[in-house]
Structure formats: C-alpha cells, structure tokens
C-alpha cells in the first residue's frame, strides 16, 4: 500500500494555546479514514494543515510526498470545502458548479447535478443566503463530484436531516467504490458513519489517542458489569476509561483487548464482559482524559470505589483478586 498522507510530530500553536502536540499518523492511499474526538480535540486544525490551508508550528506533513503548504501539486489534487466557504454575493448553485472543473480535473458535472437535485439544493437562492443544511449540501456536492485524489470533509453533515445524510453516505460509498480515492473526514456521528470507515484516528486535547483500523478500535476496549465489589476487584491493575454505577452495581469501560486472561479473570471475579462499539470507545477515551485532568473527580455517589485512582492511567499495584478495594488510597 502507498501512503497518501504522512504526518510526523505535527504541532500547531495559536498564541499560547497548543492546538496540536506531536501528532503523528499516516493515511493509506485510497482508504477512508475517520478523524474522531471531542470538540477542541484538534480535528479541524489537522484537516486544515493537511489541506495546506494552515502551516504547522512544528513537525512535518507530506501529502502524496509533497508539502501541502508549499506545493501546488497538492492543492490541485485536494478537495476541501468547508460549509462556511465564502462565495461571491451573486453565486447560486449553477455558478458554484460551473467553477468546479477549473479546480478539479476529475470533476463530474452530471454527478454534481444529480447529487444537488437529490439533496434538494435550491437553485435560485444565492449560496451566501443558504441555510446551514443547504450550505452543507453544497459542500458535499463539491466534495463528492470533484473526485479529487484527496477529499477532505470536516463534519460534512451539519444541519442535514437524516434522509439527506443517508443519501450522502450512499452516494459517497457508491462513487468511492467506482473511483477509489483517499478520503479523510471528521465526524461526531460515529454510530452513523463507522461502517463507512476503514481506519480511525482519535484525537484528544491535540494528541493522538488511537490510530488503527476500525475493527481493531472496537477491540481496543471492553465493558464489564456486575456488583460494585466484584467489578472493583476485577479492575485493580487495569486501565479504566469510564465507569458509572447505581446502587451496588457498576459498569466500566476498560482499555485493552478482552483476551483469554481477561475472560478468565472476569469469570473468577463474577463480572460480565461485553464488547463495546466504536462510539463507546471514543466517548470513553474522551471521558478518561477529562477525568485525569480533573483530579478531584472521584466521589462515592456515582463512581466506583477503586475507579477514581485508575482513571486515565494504569495502576501498577496489587493482583486482581486479593485487594477488592485496593485501588483507593
């Protein structure tokens, strides 16, 4: 496989704020990669740097082997339309679609027309005056119809209704199957879009938390449930991403694969193991970092006894079954 995007130790500062710190990941050519993470995680900044619209403060980015900020060969092969894209005052759909071929060699005018019609983009409204959903639809039409070797979507669904979103996914997949290209997209609608993706990168607070194939991401955590006492015993020495409980019952999402040893320990502790979806993994990763940055988070009401100490980092002490309340100190 060829690498389309190479990001090495990328950092981006805005004044005294670190938007990205030592971000490194690759995107293989002709794959669909999802960039996930909470608001403010650095998704849009990363996309902007890859698109050559922003310069890194440090590190190295290569798209098709070239620097996107300096090399016009990258710009001509990249499609990145934001939903707040500015257009001349008098531009309507027709004018927007008319300039497509000037920027994108692979532009398919027929695809653009039919997709715009299916997404019900109004023809007479100036693009500047369109609603959020309509502006998103225009961005989607351009992104798909451009057939650019690198196509970037930044939360492309904002303001779109469920029917329009499904249409977008279907048309994107169909066209991608016929004309494979590298697609990098950010999204919060993980449940909805997970099956479109081949690879995921999870950012949190400007750093990469997860970088793997979707299937491996689902296997990178599991959930346990049972009485608070037995769950606490099981969790000792493990990395807890999130947990909550009611009465004497607790469920927790734990980092790692549910391998033989985990299954044996769970059976011995009397807790129930279950797999988690990508959405849960990403939410738990975000929750774990929020908890580790708020030290006084643990409180007996909604948190399990031992979990507070284990949140966000491995606890190296004690064996699972000898210290039921072990992690609390």
């Amino acid at each position, binding site marked *: 496989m060829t690498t389309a995007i190479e990001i090495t130790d990328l950092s981006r500062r805005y004044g005294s704020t670190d938007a990205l710190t030592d971000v490194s990941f690759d995107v293989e050519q002709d794959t669909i990669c999802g960039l996930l993470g909470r608001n403010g995680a650095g998704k849009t900044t990363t996309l902007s740097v890859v698109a050559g619209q922003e310069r890194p403060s440090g590190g190295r980015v290569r798209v098709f082997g070239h620097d996107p900020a300096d090399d016009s060969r990258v710009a001509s092969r990249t499609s990145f339309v934001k939903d707040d894209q500015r257009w001349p005052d008098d531009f309507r759909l027709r004018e927007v679609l008319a300039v497509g071929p000037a920027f994108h060699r692979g532009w398919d005018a027929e695809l653009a027309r039919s997709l715009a019609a299916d997404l019900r983009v109004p023809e007479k409204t100036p693009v500047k005056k369109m609603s959020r959903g309509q502006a998103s639809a225009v961005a989607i039409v351009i992104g798909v119809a451009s057939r650019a070797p690198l196509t970037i979507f930044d939360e492309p669904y904002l303001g779109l209704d469920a029917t329009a979103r499904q249409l977008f996914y279907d048309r994107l*997949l169909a066209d991608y199957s016929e004309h494979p290209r590298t697609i990098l997209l950010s999204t919060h609608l993980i449940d909805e879009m997970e099956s479109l993706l081949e690879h995921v990168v999870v950012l949190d607070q400007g750093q990469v938390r997860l970088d793997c194939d979707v299937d491996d991401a689902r296997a990178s955590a599991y959930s346990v449930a049972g009485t608070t006492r037995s769950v606490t015993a099981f969790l000792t020495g493990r990395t807890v991403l999130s947990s909550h409980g009611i009465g004497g019952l607790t469920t927790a999402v734990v980092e790692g694969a549910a391998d033989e040893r985990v299954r044996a320990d769970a059976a011995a502790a009397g807790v129930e193991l279950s797999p988690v979806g990508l959405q*849960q993994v990403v939410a738990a990763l975000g929750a774990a970092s929020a908890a580790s940055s708020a030290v006084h988070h643990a409180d007996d009401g909604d948190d399990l006894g031992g979990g507070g100490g284990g949140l966000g980092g491995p606890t190296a002490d004690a064996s699972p079954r000898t210290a039921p309340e072990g992690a609390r100190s």
Partner: protein
Amino acid sequence: MFDDGTPIFQQLADRIAGDVLSGTYAEGDQVASTNEFAAFYRINPATAGKAVNLLVDRGVLYKRRGIGMFVAEGARERLAEQRRAAFAAEYVRPLVLEAAALGIDAAHLRRMIDQETAP
C-alpha cells in the same frame, strides 16, 4: 444493520454464510460482488472485501478470475460442520445456565426439549 462489538466484516461473513447454509445461495451460485455488498449493506468496500476473503479462506466461496465470486461445492456441509462444532458452546451451554438460574433441573429440561422436538 450491524451491532456493536464483533467486527463488521465478521458479521457480514456470518450473514453470507447463513445465506449459504439456509440455501438462499445454492452451491455454484454467483454471489454479489464486493462493491455490491458494500453498497447494499452501506459499508466500506474494504470491509466487504475482508468478509468475502474470510469466506474464501474457509472454502465457502471461490473466485473465478474476471467473473466474480461463487459458492463452493460442499460449502453447506462445511459450514454445517463448523457450526455443529460451536453448537454446544453457543446454544446448549447458555440454555443449561439459564435453566439452572430458573430452577429447571436437567430432567425437566430434557422433557421440554423432547416436547419441542416431538413431531
């Protein structure tokens, strides 16, 4: 369409295998292409490809170059054999555990199975 937990390619492979087992696809039939599976189930074509490759590895499907994917001769029996091997762990064990939790003893459970399977 697909649930959490098990990988999507695994779930798709199970579904296609189920269709072969139930006779929806007969042996020798051509099955949908990777792109058709991807479009129908709304999944990434690479994921659909993984499911198809898994079934090729298991001798359920085979590829005819330039033409497409077909159900292999003997695929049904092979699948049935694989599923029989997992039957005890996947069906009998949970059944016995649930029965025990409800206070249904082994003799009672056997009578219930006899009733269900009676002609």
